[in-house]
């Protein structure tokens, strides 16, 4: 009985993951260069409806439509830049997974570096302070001699 349940659960799981892992239907180019451009474009463009997926990964209606749009524009010989700016004109900067550097996106572009810099500064200051305290606490050679003498006396 338990075996059966486990088996059923396992099957369910396999079923669920297969559905999730099913590649979205995309058109393809015979020309490998075009195909590569197509693939990289639909990976760089974000699905406006399902916001954490790119056009390649999403099967929502709008993602399918936009993929077809990219396909058509590539077939017409449009440049990659033309295609991305066409999308930005309609859906805003948001559709780019790598937004342009602008006032709005400074924090996205430079935030991590700034945080890293702050972290490094804190670590350096902390390390210096620790070294300084250690120095303060350590005995001068004179004091060390006195200590040694006292310890010897005790023995």
């Amino acid at each position, binding site marked *: 009985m338990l075996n059966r349940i486990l088996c059923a659960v396992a099957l369910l799981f396999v079923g669920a993951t297969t559905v999730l892992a099913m590649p979205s239907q995309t058109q393809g180019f015979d020309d490998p260069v075009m195909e590569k451009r197509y693939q990289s474009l639909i990976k760089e463009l974000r699905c406006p409806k399902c916001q954490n997926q790119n056009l390649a990964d999403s099967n929502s209606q709008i993602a399918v*439509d936009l993929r077809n749009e990219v396909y058509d524009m590539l077939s017409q010989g449009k440049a990659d830049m033309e295609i991305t700016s066409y999308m930005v004109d*309609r*859906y*805003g900067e948001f559709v780019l997974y790598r937004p342009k550097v602008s006032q709005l996106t400074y924090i996205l572009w430079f935030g991590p570096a700034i945080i890293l810099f702050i972290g490094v500064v804190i670590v350096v200051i902390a390390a210096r302070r620790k070294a300084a305290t250690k120095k303060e606490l350590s005995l001068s050679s004179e004091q060390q001699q006195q200590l040694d003498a006292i310890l010897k006396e005790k023995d």
Partner: protein
Amino acid sequence: MGKIIRFLPLIVFIALGAVLYRGLFLKPQELPSALIGKPVPAFSLPGLKNAEAVLTPASLKGQIVLLNVWATWCPSCRYEHPYLIDLAKGGQVSLYGLNYKDDRQAALKWLDDLGDPYLLNVFDEAGRLGLDLGVYAAPETFVIDHHGIIRKRFAGPIDAKVWQEEFAPLVKMIRQEQARGE
């Protein structure tokens, strides 16, 4: 200096907390439209009721235009439909429809069954105008001012609360601009 360093983790914690707390109330699904402040994109499409008619941006003429993107396959459109009928009766705005990627017969039946609040419906079977408007789902509603400029885009169904919060202030503002002759 030492004191600041000591309190730095607390300061960072509070700052981060504030940012994340604010994030709880943001609505990332409400994308700002790339078309705010721009005229309605050019189109030439048939009407829904009259397939012979050629509709262009000039066909959407009214005091203050509300362009409602809808389809029969969209459950939220059914939810907002009764409110649209109320809105049309109120006469505050000129309500136009954009029937988006739909089946003409199904759409006509919908209007017969549920009532037709629209002055006119543009039939966008292929979704070309929808694409040019940056529509990514239905329902979506655009507010177009008396100069034909898109002033707002709202994704999701409209009801009385949404109208009061999202649309009424803007409609009032546009009407004032109009009165001042701007």
